[in-house]
């Protein structure tokens, strides 16, 4: 019951935040030079002013900015994110079409990086100051600092071109009407490379966080209590230290999970993953205002959702939190 109330309260606040974000984003996007009409006209390779003007009128760009904003907001309130004139489709359809792929990719990368990061971080913390610790922190940092596309391409070269183990791009092999299981396996195979490359980047952050947090927690009194009980070190680390250390990691993970929705542009591009990051990037390049705003709105909503989820997880993990504001 309390959780439900909390959820409603957070949701109400979240909606307000999203609306505010829409307004700010709206102005931000319109400040960038160029507009969708000129981009479209430009692409066709031949234009005249009348044609561009005709497009502008069609897209409603001739109206004052505030009117455009008003119309847009009114649409958002009715869950109508407008029409992408460029793609000739309602924005919501386009976005929802792409969202699952992104959620799959970032979700997998997220789980992968979180698991690996926490495990490695814990491992490093357990060997604090020793070579293993140094190796883990350094290697994870290298993955963090190495250009993502380079790692991606190397992964493709090794695992797709040379070894031919995994597909290089796309979300599934086209054609054929395989059964559900085959299709799932197919997608899973396609998922491996992009998810791992994207995940490795984030792993470094989790490794650091977990390590620092573990070391901090290991200094606390209750760990000594556990030792005094005669618990084996292994159990202490896993059951007590790690569990307490994971709390700040959860906070960070929540933040990052939200960001991941829009943060996978590069990976989606390199692996031809039909996700929302690419959609956003293309919309941005083409100044497809409605689509871009739509993606922003959805990703903002995602961030809000993930924040709420984080809080829920937090409430599950940490009994001390009854209500977070």
């Amino acid at each position, binding site marked *: 019951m309390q959780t439900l109330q909390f959820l409603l309260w957070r949701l109400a606040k979240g909606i307000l935040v999203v609306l505010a974000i829409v307004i700010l984003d709206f102005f931000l996007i319109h400040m*960038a*030079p*160029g*507009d969708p009409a*000129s*981009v*479209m*006209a*430009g*692409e*066709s*390779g*031949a*234009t*005249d*002013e*009348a*044609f*561009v*003007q005709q497009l502008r009128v*069609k897209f409603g760009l001739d109206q004052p900015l505030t009117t455009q904003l008003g119309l847009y907001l009114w649409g958002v309130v009715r869950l109508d994110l407008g029409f992408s004139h*460029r*793609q*000739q*489709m309602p924005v919501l359809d*386009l976005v929802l*079409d*792409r969202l699952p*792929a992104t959620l799959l990719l970032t979700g997998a990368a997220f789980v992968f990086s979180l698991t690996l990061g926490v495990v490695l971080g814990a491992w490093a913390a357990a060997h604090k100051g020793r070579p293993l610790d140094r190796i883990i922190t350094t290697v994870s940092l290298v993955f963090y600092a190495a250009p993502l*596309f380079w790692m991606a*391409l190397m992964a*493709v*070269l090794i695992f*797709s*071109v040379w070894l*031919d183990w995994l597909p*290089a*791009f*796309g*979300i*599934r092999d*086209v*054609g054929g009407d395989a059964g559900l299981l085959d299709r799932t396996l197919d997608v899973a195979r396609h998922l491996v490379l992009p998810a791992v490359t994207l995940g490795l980047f984030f792993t470094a952050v989790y490794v650091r966080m977990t390590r620092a947090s573990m070391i901090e927690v290991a200094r606390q009194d209750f760990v000594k209590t556990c030792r005094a009980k005669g618990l084996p070190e292994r159990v202490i680390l896993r059951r007590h230290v790690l569990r307490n250390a994971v709390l700040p990691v959860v906070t960070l993970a929540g933040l990052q999970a939200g960001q991941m929705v829009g943060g996978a542009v590069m990976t*989606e*591009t*390199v*692996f*031809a*993953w*039909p*996700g929302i990051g*690419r*959609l956003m990037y*293309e919309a941005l*390049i*083409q*100044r497809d205002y409605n689509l871009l705003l739509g993606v922003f709105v959805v990703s903002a909503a995602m961030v809000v959702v993930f924040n709420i989820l984080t809080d829920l997880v937090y409430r599950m993990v940490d009994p001390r939190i009854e209500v977070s504001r």
Partner: protein
Amino acid sequence: QQGTPKEGGRANVVIQPEPPGLMVGILQNAPTQMVAGNIYEGLLRYDEKLQPKPQLAKSWTISEDGKTYTFKLQPGVKWHDGKPFTAADVVFSADVFLRKTNPRTRASLAYVESITAPDDETVVFQLKQPFGPFIRMFEVGTMPMVPKHIYEGTDFLTNPANNTPIGTGPFKFGEWVKGSYIKLVKNKDYYEKGKPHLDEIYWHIIPDAAARAVAFETGKVDILPGGSVENFDIPRLAKTKNACITDKGWEFFAPQSWLWFNHRGGLTADPRFRKAVSYAIDRNFALDVLWNGMGAVSDGPFAQSTSFRDDKAVVKYPYDPAKAKALLKEMGYKGEPVRFTPMPYGETWLRWAEAIKQNLEDVGIKVEMVNTDVAGWNKKLGDWDFDISITFLYQYGDPALGVSRAYISSNIAKGSPFNNVGGYSNPEVDKLFAEGAVGFPDSERQKAYSAVQKKLTEDAVYDWLIDLKFPTLTHCNVKNLITTGIGVNDGFKDAWIE
């Protein structure tokens, strides 16, 4: 012509970027045309020499005075939805639909007085005056046939049928998974018996150039149309097993690249400065290093394959830094910076811009690069906010269709990066181009165009760089893919896979 066709199979092709839609009558961008060339058709096709060949029109006649064009249509042609294709569709497409939606076609249709259909299989275009290039206007990208029964009386731009295109072409629209692929399937009722040979075509959307190369190497795709992998990758890919390369199929478009100069003021208004720039730039270096030696060095406003090119008329500016320096000295150039706006159309163009900048700095011109993204570039050029910029434009085989637009003063208008953005204005040139367009017969046109080439090169109006060729890479078992002057854009009806 490459042996006996084999029936069936699938062609996997790369498309980049993902087209915004497939209704080629509304969208004139390159990827749309590439895919939609299989769905829609024009009345004619053009071979490598740009000579017309039958398509939806089985035959045609041009009157003696060059003002009446009569087309006989193929009998028994059906739209993909089963409705018959008739002369009424042609009249609707040309006279109603495209006048509204295609600015390039609209400009040329200005010469047309009337379009009529005396019977279901005959269409007559009556011109106000002779217009030499008119016969080059019937290709699918310029004048695609659209179904009257679907579009008449609707708002063309928002008609829901745009998402499920209906044409007469050898392939029908199958499925479009946004961000992944577009699938076309064989039109079993195609009017040319025995064609097409392929069962289906998959257009794969792979946004990253390196991934496209990998896709080709691993055999996931068989065809890389021109421009779909980075130039730097082409020599390597061409050497891979089972790879064939051709630079055919761009004759009709004849893309030419040049430097825009802003004639409205500043250094670039001074012909000596423009000439200095022209002398300073090492075109051969760019051709070899950036374009793998494919294409040709440009030396005038007419590309090599464009009709009426006159090599003797042009004044040439070969690579000669010493001359460039001399000219700069003569004009008293003191190192004032000049702004250079590169075209953000991919790595090759950015690298080229860097090379050009280096060329210019080598002769002592101070260059200030102004980077933007595509939309910003459109805007900057459309707003004339630049000193020098780089670009390329199609010439469509005829100067009246693709060349004059960058030089005539009536085409100076803000808002588009593809008209006369340099702002060059010369009544004499205007007049010559006008004469060339309507001259009759061709000898008349040649006269006007030779004069124009001389004048423009004398003035060093822009700095013409390279006639581009975008080579197409295929696996060698893809046969008969490119059969016309517009190459991959013209549909795969003749192609088969061995």
